[in-house]
């Protein structure tokens, strides 16, 4: 994203170009324009800018994209860890989780 950089070298996004059928859906769903079409195959432009939302992998018809997707939310992760030790700070697991 323009003007913003997060920690480099940690993103899990992977694309297998041999499996890709060039349908062109992944560039349409990526909110950071990480993926682009080149010679009727998808290509990763800048992996470090990926926020691992998982939209591309979910929408890929042939599972050519793999990403360890999730919501990058520190308080959510802390609550998950605490829940692992059976500690609950609030009634709901995180401040933004649905009932």
């Amino acid at each position, binding site marked *: *994203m*323009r*003007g*913003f*950089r*997060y*920690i*480099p070298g*940690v*993103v*899990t996004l992977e694309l297998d170009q041999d499996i890709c059928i060039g349908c062109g*859906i992944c560039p*349409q*769903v990526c*909110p*950071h*324009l990480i993926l682009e079409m080149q010679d009727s195959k998808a290509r990763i432009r800048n992996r470090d*800018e*990926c*926020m*691992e*939302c*998982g*939209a591309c992998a*979910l*929408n890929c*018809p042939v599972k050519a994209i793999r990403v*360890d*997707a*999730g*919501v*990058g*939310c*520190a*308080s*959510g*992760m*802390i609550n998950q860890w605490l829940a692992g030790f059976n500690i609950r700070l609030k009634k709901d697991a995180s*401040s*933004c*989780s*649905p*009932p």
Partner: protein
Amino acid sequence: MPTEAGPVAVIGGSLTVADILGGCKARWGIGRLSYIVPPGLYAIGAPDRAAPVVVTANYKMSYDLVRRALDRRNIWLLVLETYGINVWCAAGKGTFGTGELVRRIADSGLCRVVDHRRLLLPIMGASGVKALEVKKRSGFEVRFATLRIGDLPTYLDNGMQADHEMRELTFSFRERLVLTPIEMVGGMKSLAYAGLPLALLGGFGGGSFSVQRFLVVFLLYGMALFCGTFLVPLLLPLIPGRMFAVKGAIVGSVSALLAGVSLGRFSVAGRLELAAMVLMMGAISAFYAMNFTGSTPFTSPSGVRREMQCSLPVMAGAVLLGIVLLVMGMLLP
């Protein structure tokens, strides 16, 4: 209005004072989790059988922003049950998802209301909705339109074509500013269980309890919260460091140092106390700055995990060391 699938509620595109006030309250965390509208099909204006169908979440703020953007147009609005959560977060949790969309299409009788088979979804919903499966199960083609609601009118006027800008995320000063109230409200809860004990400890610094010292420490704690939940989000791209915790530590400890030095001649006398304050307030600001990763649209879970692994032990160490220094300051003459 009557349709072949039964009556559909007609809604306006202008927001009332109550709507705007409700949005502000939600931004400040007041009744935010119950700020909802019933899911289902709505009519904006007087849509016909060829009118576009726009899909959104049942968080009332999302719904309000969509209908305001589409004011004076004729549009069908399909609201999904996301339990009052916005599109992006609900997509991440799967409630703004394939299953709910297919179910809501069937429940609303949408295929009897419109002749076309096309839905317009926000791009941020794509992490929950598998377009091909929706097509297979409901017959409706999913088109991911724009990221921002505000671009929707232009998208519609362009013949449903999104340009580069409509498909690239931004995180402007204004977009960050509106997110800070909920961060501050969340942080303020810790005044009771962390700020107060710390201030009490500081108050006893001189051997006997001093109200002035107590107030200074409490004030510094509040300032650290303000740094982590307001200043860091607002000045995010300007503060050095990739990790949010580093940004928070810089702003928090520098502020504590400046405030400690300027208040020094009144109460926080010793250098040990000052060092303790800089350490602890840096850590507190860092913690709340790290929390802001959950509200930004560019931090990956892998990155946040890495950041937490690196920074949480440092924060805990800084707070412990700060407490040790405070106690030492009490014992030394």
